[in-house]
């Protein structure tokens, strides 16, 4: 399993490097705007967040598209590897990319709020809800990317990278950060994962 995950990471290293760079930028900007003017930085941070979410979607697409283009799975399944293991390695790498961006950002935000805006830190439950919702938004975008990636229409793939993040953010805007949005996102993720698993398990390779 570790070999499979390592292969996925190596194959998608540009995405992971981008994730690290994005996380570093977010943390840097968070520190800067907290020290200078937090209100001014919100728009920039939201834009970067949207970019990060689009990246999650594009990673899902890239994994499925690259697999098909390079005939990776048809080769792997002839080795001591099951389709479930291939898919698990793929999902683990995707979740890892999301966490690379999200974890440092959330930790930095928590520390900064605690230190510089203690009044806001009082609402720690809200911070947990926002973080979880953002994680689920990113995961939903990634899973939808995995679903859309099986399409051969390149225009659809590009359009999906742009549209899916906006749709997800609209959902959050309507429902707000919290249990309701999390429930909807959770169902969406579950449906997408079930569809990805059934499709990958039954498709001739």
């Amino acid at each position, binding site marked *: 399993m570790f*070999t*499979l995950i*390592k*292969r996925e990471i190596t194959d998608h290293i540009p995405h992971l490097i981008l994730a690290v760079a994005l996380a570093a930028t977010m943390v840097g900007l968070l520190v800067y705007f907290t020290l200078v003017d937090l209100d001014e930085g919100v728009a920039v941070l939201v834009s970067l967040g949207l970019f990060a979410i689009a990246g999650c979607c594009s990673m899902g697409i890239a994994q499925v598209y690259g697999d098909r283009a*390079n*005939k*990776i799975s*048809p*080769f*792997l*399944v*002839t*080795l*001591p*590897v*099951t389709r479930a*293991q291939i898919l698990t390695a793929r999902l683990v790498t995707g979740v890892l990319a999301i966490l690379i961006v999200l974890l440092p950002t959330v930790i930095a935000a928590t520390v900064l709020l605690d230190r510089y805006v203690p009044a806001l830190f009082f609402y720690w439950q809200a911070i947990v809800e926002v973080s979880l919702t953002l994680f689920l938004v990113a995961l939903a975008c990634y899973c939808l990317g995995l679903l859309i990636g099986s399409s051969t229409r390149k225009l659809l793939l590009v359009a999906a990278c742009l549209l899916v993040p906006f749709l997800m953010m609209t959902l959050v805007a309507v429902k707000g950060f919290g249990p309701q949005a999390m429930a909807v996102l959770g169902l969406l993720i579950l449906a997408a994962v079930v569809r990805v698993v059934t499709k990958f398990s*039954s498709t*001739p*390779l």
Partner: protein
Amino acid sequence: MNDSPIVIENLVKYYEGRCVLDGISLEVPRGCIYGLLGRNGCGKTTIIRILLGLEPPTRGRTELLGQDSTRLSAQTHGRIGYVAEGHNLIQNYKVGRLVGLCKGLSLHWNDEFFGHLVDTFRLPMHRKVKELSAGMRAELNLALAMAIDPELLILDDPTLGLDTVARRQFLELAIDLIQKQNRTILFSSHILADVERIADRIGIIVAGKLVVDCEQDVLKSRVKKLQVLFTGKPPEDLYITEIINQRIEGREMVLTVANWNNQKQAILETFNPTSCTELPMTLEDIFIECSRPAQAILVD
């Protein structure tokens, strides 16, 4: 439980409404080299892909090493070496990286043997797979399949793209492998001389049906090509069962018959032929005769 490494029972496969495999049933005994023959598009690769669980059958059941093909475990895959038609290796990987991946995922890896194969085939580890020639890709695929010391080796037209020397090397390797106890090989090829050289048992698929499934020696002894001369025009009412092919030219009739025996000989003699000569047949000749329509079925 069946001890045969490969079991196929009443396998049916439809592609877009077209029947590709029509009730194929066969068993490959342990330690056997099975040569699977058939014309292009007859379903050889489909059988192999269904066996490996790469695609589902429409009906029927297949087993590899005692496990249902649709539910092959990673452990079972680890005991099977597979060389795919067209050598489906990961094209954008360097050879070294692909080897590392296979080694990392394999349950058993024979470094010494693999090194020997790399030296024999002179495989460049630093080049990308897509930059290799077709022959080199075939050799790499073969080396990867052999390095795991497979209990069962499935070769789908493995010598396609290999030059004569590499083909000979490959056949010698296959023979070397079979000499190790309990190794089984399923070998599909268009180069019938290769199959004739190494296969113990032959299966011929025609129009989705398995028309031949028997030992190579038995096949050769049971299919006879006879050149029969008559004083006048050959009889049109020569009814012998299991005629595979019949051709008439002037006073000469060339008959290819399955399961030739004394009874059939006696029937032929009632037509008073002036001579009856048996023509030698290679596996290729038998294959060509069997591939024609309206052939007899030769299954043990």
